């Protein structure tokens, strides 16, 4: 996640997110959790949602950085919805999909900030073997040397 979180922690956390939101039983479980507990909500930050789902960096040293990235840095990013910051866009995407009558699997990835500096939420096929349509969330990053 650029210079904010190490590459290994980034891979680690992205893997956990994509595993919990993949097609089939995982996304059904997430939808049930959302129905019961409102895991994703404008009432609390995204980091709280990740805590409830135990989505965190395995390396304890990386966790404060992950927290900062999630609840602070993402709020500084624009998104594909005018006037909605990156953090709130992610919350809205997760909440709307999980509360929809037929939630789609979700795929989280990054793109280069130089290509598009906004958080993007689209529908399409994830870069996986699955042919299922996904909600694809992509967050811009600025690589550091």
């Amino acid at each position, binding site marked *: 996640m650029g210079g904010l979180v190490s590459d290994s922690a980034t891979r680690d956390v992205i893997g956990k997110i994509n595993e919990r939101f993949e097609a089939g039983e995982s996304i*059904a479980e997430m939808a049930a959790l959302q129905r*019961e507990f409102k895991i994703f909500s404008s009432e609390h930050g995204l980091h709280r949602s990740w805590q*409830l789902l135990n*989505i965190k960096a395995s390396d304890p040293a990386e966790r404060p950085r992950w927290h900062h990235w999630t609840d602070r840095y993402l709020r500084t990013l624009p998104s594909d919805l005018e006037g909605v910051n990156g953090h709130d866009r992610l919350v809205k995407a997760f909440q709307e999909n999980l509360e929809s009558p037929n939630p789609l699997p979700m795929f989280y990835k990054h793109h280069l900030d130089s290509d598009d500096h906004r958080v993007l939420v689209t529908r399409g096929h994830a870069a996986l073997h699955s042919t299922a349509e996904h909600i694809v969330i992509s967050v811009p990053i600025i690589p550091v040397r």
Partner: protein
Amino acid sequence: MDTLRSVHARIEAYYADKISRHGASPRGVDWTCTATQQLRFVQLLKLCDFSQPFSLNDVGCGYGALVGFLAWRHPEAEVDYLGVDLSPAMISRARRRHRGTPGRRFVVGNDSPRVADYAVASGVMNVMLDHPRDLWEEFVADTLRRMHASSRRGFAVNFMAERRDGTATEGLYRADPARWTSFCQQTLGCAVEVVGGYGMREFTLLVRLDHEP
């Protein structure tokens, strides 16, 4: 009984290791996360009548996560809670975590020392380790009998359901709801409600003793 004692000893050792590695957290009792742990509590507590005070035995209570859930989800409820677990390490964590909370007690054992209105057990039947399936089902039946004997109004327990393709998962026990529904109805003489469809490949049995025959 000696055979079941050895099963209990293996379970105790397994969870002592879990809690020492992961601490008092859902991972420490083999659940993915707080949210899934709590979704199971929601199903189990459908058994209880929260409109009046009741006593509750929590069998295989671990570090006492249900205590925190009751305080959060049912803050007005008057619940006389007793947590029971085979693992002294779990009970030690539970006592430390809930020290000073009135109406919350914890004991080490495989059996509740008291009769309560209700008993619940979350995840107790799932981790079979490398026990033969027949022996594990003897353990399940024994646990259900004990919960029945120590409950006035009913008990609730969850199981992992079988996969669609019927394949097993090493070390885990998956069951057909009919197997244990039938046991509770025919052997224990209870009314059984099967709760499923809550987003997980599992089911919860709500077993009522105080039904009209």
